């Protein structure tokens, strides 16, 4: 089992998020995080979903997403050069003694302080999920009052277009070698 990051373009119609959530529940796929937002085209939402799955499971997720009538295209960015970003807000307690230490950490993580009062700071941090996890870890000793993470959004590097066809599933099973995903050719009609 590994984390797979998939992005999906979906028609922005009522109930579409419900369809996707229902699919994951129905097929017993495990959602790690799910974010939805507008994309470059009007009427289209872009979804980033991180699932805990085997290679074979990820192909099934992808094929099942394609089966939804409102899903326009899906891509698995797990094995591609891609940017993963997440935003976190952390409210941490500070005392006159610890304030400078926290501010130093904020600097190190290239985070920003967005709210200050005499007892707490609210810090905004962006980056990979790992970076935000690490940031949380180092702030924990100072006392985290509240914390929220947006879930990851992802985008492939470079200029290759997104695949627009379902992969015709080939996946790794114990003893079988996973074959390269035909997505890389941009055609992806093969398995």
């Amino acid at each position, binding site marked *: 089992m590994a984390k797979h990051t998939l992005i999906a373009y*979906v*028609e922005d119609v*009522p*109930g579409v998020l*419900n*369809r996707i959530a*229902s699919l994951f529940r*129905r097929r017993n796929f495990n959602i790690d995080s799910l974010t939805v937002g507008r994309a470059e085209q009007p009427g289209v939402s872009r979804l980033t979903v991180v699932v805990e799955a085997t290679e*074979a499971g990820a*192909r*099934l997720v992808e*094929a*099942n997403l*394609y*089966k*939804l*009538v*409102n*899903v*326009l*295209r899906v891509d698995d960015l797990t094995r591609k050069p891609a940017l993963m970003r997440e935003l976190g807000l952390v409210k941490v307690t500070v005392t006159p003694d610890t304030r400078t230490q926290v501010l130093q950490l904020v600097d190190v993580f290239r985070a920003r302080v967005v709210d200050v009062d005499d007892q707490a700071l609210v810090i905004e941090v962006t980056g990979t999920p790992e970076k935000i996890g690490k940031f949380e870890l180092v702030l924990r000793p100072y006392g985290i009052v509240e914390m929220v993470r947006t879930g990851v959004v992802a985008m492939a590097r470079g200029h290759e277009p997104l695949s627009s*066809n*379902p*992969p*015709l*599933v*080939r*996946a790794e*099973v114990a003893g*079988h070698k996973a074959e390269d995903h*035909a997505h890389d050719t941009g*055609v992806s*009609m*093969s*398995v």
Partner: protein
Amino acid sequence: MKLTGAEIIWECLQKEGVDVVFGYPGGAILPTYDAMTKYPKIHHVLVRHEQGATHMADGYARASGKVGVAIATSGPGATNMVTGIATAMMDSSPIVCITGQVGSKAIGTDAFQETDVTGVTLPITKHNYLVTRPDDIARAIREAFYIAKSGRPGPVLVDITKDAQQLTCEFDWEAAAPKLPGYRPDLRALPSEYAKALELINTAKRPIIFAGQGVIKANATAQVLELADTTRTPIAVTLLGIGAIPASSPLNLGMMGMHGEAWVNEAIQQADLIIALGMRFDDRVTGNLKTYAPHAKKIHVEIDPSEVNKNVHVDVALIGDLAEVLEELLPGVRAADRSDWWATIAAAKGDSAVRDIQALPDSGHLYAAHVINDIWRLTQKRNTIVVTDVGQHQMWEAQYFHHEKPRSLITSGGLGTMGFALPAAIGAKFACPEKDVWVVVGDGGFQMTSCELATAEQEGIKVNVAIINNAFLGMVRQWQEFFYDKRYAATPMTGPDFAKLAEAYRLTGLRCNKRSDVKATVEKTLATKGTVVIDFVVEKEDTVFPMVPAGAALDKMIRRPKQDVMSESGADKDWEMPSSTLPGVFVEAAVEASLNGHGKAAKLSKPAKKSAKPVKVAAKPLRVAPTKKRSTARR
């Protein structure tokens, strides 16, 4: 042209070529029913329960290949459809369900008869729509028909609010053409995949073809037979694939899976190549996946990519319409002889035919297998559709009724819906009025939807209902016998006098409890005008053989007993199994142990040890035959 939403619904149905709809009126769908009177070309069948409407639409779709239509009101009307929709979903049957919904302003207020039907049916429809404006009705219905019948077919539900039915708008059929940018029903595999598949087919020594329902849906019988004949490859069919390949074809080995023939399953376990055509490796077909077809490479021809590698890892997947894929494959296929492989299969077949109860002389007892086989023999020359429910009768029908043509068996396979048969048969009769439609149904399943006899009576149509009445929920009882120490919890079942029930509906009722009477009964049924219900009172504790226990390896079947209990003549003594136990009978604990990888596989020679409370029958744990006393008690 300005029309009300309700009129637009009927205009659209007419333009989609619908000639019959199955439905039940109610408050939220009333405007549509009111407009119906203006469209006399579409015949409306009033059902007795909305579940029946969906099963009828399903039966109509499976018999005709066209889209079946069911209509119901909001709330309870729509929720009653759920079972029928789920049945159609599992068996890929194209139906469109139209439901009324409370007015758009009342949505979300828990108004009278309000249910979130699109929410409820979301996981059991291929797609669904909630329409709140008359302007959106035409497009929703056009898309619903297109989605239902294209690609892998399935049910689509269109929920239309009452105000959308009442308000008027401009009706423009052309402008309402489907716009579905994300819907891809026509996928194709790359040429390189065909090359890989051909390589496997041309080098295999022991190949086997699986013919599933996809063969029927794609009308690919001729191509499959050509592939099998050229390469001398035996064909095994799935339950829903029955009829795809003529039963009389020497290439057709018969049904695979849990109650498939033993030689078919043995052939699968020995095969070095499986060519799976339009089937989905259901658990009832594969048995234990860990031991399934261990020597076989697999080619999967399938229209739905999400079925590939779902249960079984395949080596080559050819996505696309089955007939088109086969057309592309056939020129590259090399002729072969494969006589060794056929000899192996013939050896595995061995004495199975002799063990078949059908070959045994009349013992004075009526067995379901006899009834079904006799119906087949007596109706062979006629054009017949058989519709079954789920359970023992379904398996006996699959084993003893030999189907020659596609769409001649309609059965609830995936969902295994009791109560499916009678309404689906009524739907099938509307699709094919020139054919005989037989319902083969258990006494349990029949009682679930027997109210639809009234529909048959009101419509004046003829379906022949053969109730296989063993006064038990037979298949559940069989599992209790094998795996639950014969504790028959809640499986003995009484029913009404079925013949009198038929008469109460102003139909014909017959009863038959002797094998020698079957012929006369069937002949009388065929000669009678209108629907006939036959109560075939059969042996109560009869068993479907062969059987793969759930979770066991496919070739570890419980075979038909060699010393068949049914060969005994009708003396009044208690029937006993021979003292040696049935070969290969598993008990659940042993099956589970072997599945979990600890403990030994079930010991075949020893009878199961009983640790449970001392039930009376436990002393002879594997006795199969009923006692004469008990079986006559209720007659």
